[in-house]
């Protein structure tokens, strides 16, 4: 019965979303307050209904109701409760339901929180949001219904791919979707502004916090996925330039460009049409990601289902959403210009260059991801575009961006003194050059890119600190004065400082773990000693363990350094009984200097059960990636907590005459 309630709730939700797509929009065009206001009620209703459906599905997973096809094919009675819950969004259908749930929750957020934006803008935004909801609800109900039933029910389920039974990966999709879908609000705002034909100051105000929130979630989502790949796949990689990774990275890049450009739009009224375009494109790239992951269009390690019919449906959705909004853009954008003027050397110009580079980087990733498809369509030839391409194209662009990032925040609005800024940064430049030379000296013959990147990371870190120091007049004014200034510096400013420093920290991690990684792969028998990166690792043997739904072989590795005991590592190889597959559970000792990473595989041969394939890696500085990404996200949160962004738009001034509103 419970699943059927979910099914019914979804059917109602689709109908409600249709109402919400129509009434507020017409209401806004015809100045009908009641119709515009109906959006608030419908968005509450929509959220309640989808939440009921989601709860129903989750309940079915929790109690293992195998009359629900989705449960039967993605769960198992023996699975740990945590993963039963997480399996709710582990499959294509369930994840789509989560997607929609987040979508309607964001809609509800607008209707509840956006008390201070013009009613018309709000009504139109919610209507656009409802179009998206209606599109995805119908997609789910007609092609991928999570509540399809089986009767008679199988006695037990088929279990979820064990690679996915992991905390990191269980949390990865919700964050990713919060990011993807968070951009939907920005998109709806942009389309509403395009329908209206003008950009309110409130528009720019509203776009920034939503963009920032979505960006923080997306950052965390991507990092969780990357972290999962690092420890779960067993060979210590964290980024593969796989199409599925790329499609989550593109909205991130575009979103980064978006909230930088929105700053200019809010503060100076410039770049309006560009900001609108970015808002549309960011969500379009999220949709493209959803499409690519779920259509089986490109080959990837971790795509969902391969079903061209679903692909056609999403492509149609994309055509309506992206095609429609960009057409609207083509009509409205030329009329939408004007804004504060500025000199070629100014904060505005710096942010423009930032946007140029980020947009180019996004386009490069998009092009690299889709090029195999384009070429295949034109010539039938099949090629692969892998990491070497992105290292040669994307990475240099980002390095230039890092140079600009060091300078940009020091520039003042309207007109800046570049010479003054550069002279303030000359010490930073000197130090980073020295560091680069030092690295080059220590690692002669190593990759040149690593040397350059380390130098640039130091440059960015130094420039960020310089900027902060100069804002609080550190060294120029008495210390007490500097402290006072440091305290009163707005939180959004600290957000910027922390996030930029986070990127510098990330860079150090990227370089360390890719340029100076060492690896030993060997057959190990009890007693085998392996030497790696100054550690002596002793293999003590393997024992059998039993988990709730798997059997495990756990190796014990004792690690010494200069004869002194350091730690014990226990990498495992798990065989999941129902799913019939094995996973590698690596064991990692993390320090700031680097990770000691161990994984084992099956015995070397059936006949030699005591001889195991052991893989030990030393990944220098890899933890800096996670720290740096944490700082990036934390910087976003700091900015969000800034009063100006949190409030969005101030409430109307008290005492101001209210505009003619029909009486109650």
């Amino acid at each position, binding site marked *: *019965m*419970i699943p059927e*309630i979910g099914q*019914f709730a979804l*059917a*109602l*939700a*689709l*109908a*409600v979303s*249709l*109402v919400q797509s129509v*009434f507020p929009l017409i*209401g806004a065009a015809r*100045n*009908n*307050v*009641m*119709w515009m*206001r*109906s959006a608030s*009620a*419908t968005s*509450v*209703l929509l959220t309640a209904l989808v939440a*009921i459906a989601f709860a129903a599905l989750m309940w079915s997973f929790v109690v*293992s*109701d*195998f*009359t629900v*096809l989705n449960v039967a094919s993605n769960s198992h009675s023996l699975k740990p409760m945590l993963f039963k819950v997480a399996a709710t969004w582990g499959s294509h259908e369930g994840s789509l339901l989560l997607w929609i749930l987040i979508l309607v929750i964001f809609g509800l957020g607008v209707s509840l929180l956006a008390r201070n934006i*013009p*009613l*018309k803008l709000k009504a139109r935004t919610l209507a656009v949001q409802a179009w998206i909801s209606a599109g995805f609800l119908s997609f789910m109900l007609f092609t991928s*219904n999570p*509540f399809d*039933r*089986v*009767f008679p029910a199988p*006695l*037990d389920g088929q279990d979820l791919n064990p690679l996915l039974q992991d905390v990191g990966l269980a949390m990865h999709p919700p964050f990713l979707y919060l990011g993807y879908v968070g951009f939907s609000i920005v998109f709806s705002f942009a389309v509403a502004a395009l329908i209206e034909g003008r950009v*309110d*100051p*409130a528009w720019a105000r509203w776009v920034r916090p939503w963009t920032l929130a979505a960006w923080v979630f997306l950052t965390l989502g991507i990092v969780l996925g990357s972290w999962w790949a690092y420890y779960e796949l067993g060979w210590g990689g964290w980024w593969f330039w796989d199409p599925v990774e790329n499609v989550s990275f593109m909205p991130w890049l575009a979103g980064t460009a978006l909230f930088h450009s929105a700053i200019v739009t809010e503060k100076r*009224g410039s770049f309006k049409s560009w900001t609108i375009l970015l808002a549309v494109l960011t969500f379009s790239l999220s949709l493209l990601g959803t499409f690519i992951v779920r259509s089986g269009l490109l080959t990837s390690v971790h795509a969902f289902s391969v079903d061209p019919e679903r692909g056609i449906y999403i492509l149609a959705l994309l055509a309506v959403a992206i095609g429609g909004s960009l057409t609207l853009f083509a009509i409205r954008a030329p009329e939408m210009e004007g804004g504060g003027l500025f000199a070629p050397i100014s904060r505005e110009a710096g942010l423009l260059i930032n946007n140029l580079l980020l947009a180019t980087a996004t386009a490069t990733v998009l092009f690299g991801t889709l090029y195999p498809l384009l070429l295949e369509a034109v010539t039938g030839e099949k090629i692969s575009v892998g990491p070497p391409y992105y290292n040669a194209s994307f990475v240099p662009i980002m390095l230039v961006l890092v140079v600009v990032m060091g300078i940009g925040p020091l520039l003042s*609005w*309207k007109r800046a003194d570049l010479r003054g800024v550069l002279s303030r940064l000359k010490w930073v430049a000197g130090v980073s050059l020295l560091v680069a030379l030092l690295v080059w000296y220590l690692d002669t013959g190593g990759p040149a890119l690593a040397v350059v990147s380390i130098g640039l990371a130091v440059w960015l870190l130094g420039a960020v600190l310089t900027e902060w120091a100069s804002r609080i*007049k550190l060294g120029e004014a008495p210390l007490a004065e500097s402290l006072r*200034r440091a305290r009163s510096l*707005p939180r959004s*400013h600290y957000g910027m400082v922390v996030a930029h420093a986070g990127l510098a920290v990330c860079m150090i991690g990227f370089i360390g773990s890719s340029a100076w990684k060492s690896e030993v792969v060997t057959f190990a028998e009890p007693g085998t000693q392996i030497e790696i990166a100054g550690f002596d690792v002793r293999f003590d043997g393997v024992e059998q363990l039993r988990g709730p739904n798997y059997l495990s072989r756990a190796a014990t590795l004792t690690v010494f350094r200069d004869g002194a005991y350091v730690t014990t590592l226990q990498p495992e190889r798990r065989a999941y009984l129902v799913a019939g597959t094995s996973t590698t559970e690596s064991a990692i000792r993390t320090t700031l200097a680097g990770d000691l990473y161990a994984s084992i595989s099956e015995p070397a041969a059936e006949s030699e059960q005591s001889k195991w394939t052991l893989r030990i890696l030393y990944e220098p500085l890899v933890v800096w990636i996670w720290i740096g990404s944490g700082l990036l996200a934390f910087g976003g949160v700091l900015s969000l907590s800034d009063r*100006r962004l949190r409030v969005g*738009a*101030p*409430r*109307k*001034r008290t005492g101001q005459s209210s*505009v003619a*509103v*029909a009486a109650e």
Partner: protein
Amino acid sequence: MIWIIFSFMAVAVFLTLALSGLGRKTSDLSRRESASAIFSDQIGEVEKDLERGIISAEEAKAARAEIERRLKAIDRQSDDKAIMGHSGRALILLAALVVPALGAGLYWQLGSPYIPSQPFAQREGEQAEAREIADLAVRLKSRLEADETGGPTEGWVLLAQTYMRMGRFGDAADAFEGLLDRPNANSALVSQYGEALVYADDGVVTPKADRAFERALELDPSNPAATFYKAIGLEQAGSPDKAYDLLKTRMDAEEEFRPWMESFVAQLNRIAPSIGRAPVNLAAFAPSMPGPTADQVAAAEEMSDEDRQAFIRSMVERLASRMQENPGDLDGWMRLGNAYSVLGETDGARNAYGRARDLADDLPQGDPRKVAIDRALLELGG
């Protein structure tokens, strides 16, 4: 119960929609209000930044001047027209009515209200049964193996059939295999052996299985299961026309309706389009069976598409109500399931075949109806 909940949900949706748009109106902002509020807030920020010493006095002055200019510009603009009141209320009420109706209609298409929830914990009976069967199989096997005379044929057949039910097709085939040389290995036994082989090979009729069906036919040329699988083998080898002929000949040889004909017809009609043969009508073989007569079918062919749908539907409804009165009729459930799938009503079909599947458990293993039900359920996503 479920209908009460559904009605409650529908009413809640109706009420929320019907009342939407009413209520407090304090917080609605016009464009001008919102913009001027933001600009004055921005001016406040500039003051604060100046106080904090983030910007110089000159910068602050310029910024303030710019914002003030914008504020003035906004004031000069004409604001939105006065906003009207309650017009269009009727349409909202209409929408509030349409939404539950639309939701219900959609649910009618998608839902399966009669399938109960079956949380795993509440299915101890089934689990116990499954364990019992497994246990039984183990005991039966050890007893048969301990038997010095090799164990009675019936015992081994029972074991093999148990394995089949448990989905251990390879074991079932092995159990049957030991009986093949016994003098009482009849046609049914040999064809069941072949069937186990086919199941064990994911539905592929391997030459080994084919030989078994061959032998089953030697023992009893009228064994329909053996004929059925031989035809499937032929089709898999790329000779659908031969498969068609074989099935058709076997059916033509029969004087009256037999239950297995359903699956034969289904199979024939699946092959027919690809080799350009005429589809077969079950009614032609079973004039006495309840269902459309040849005349009715002929009449249906002359109808328009809509009429035909309606006609088929009325037939199906009659059949469905008959099944409610006579739920033990396996063939009836299968016909109903088939009719539903023709109409594209997957859930109805699934339910009907589900009922049929329960009844089919009592059938002997070689019965092609079982296969037909299982296949239908599989195709329906069951």
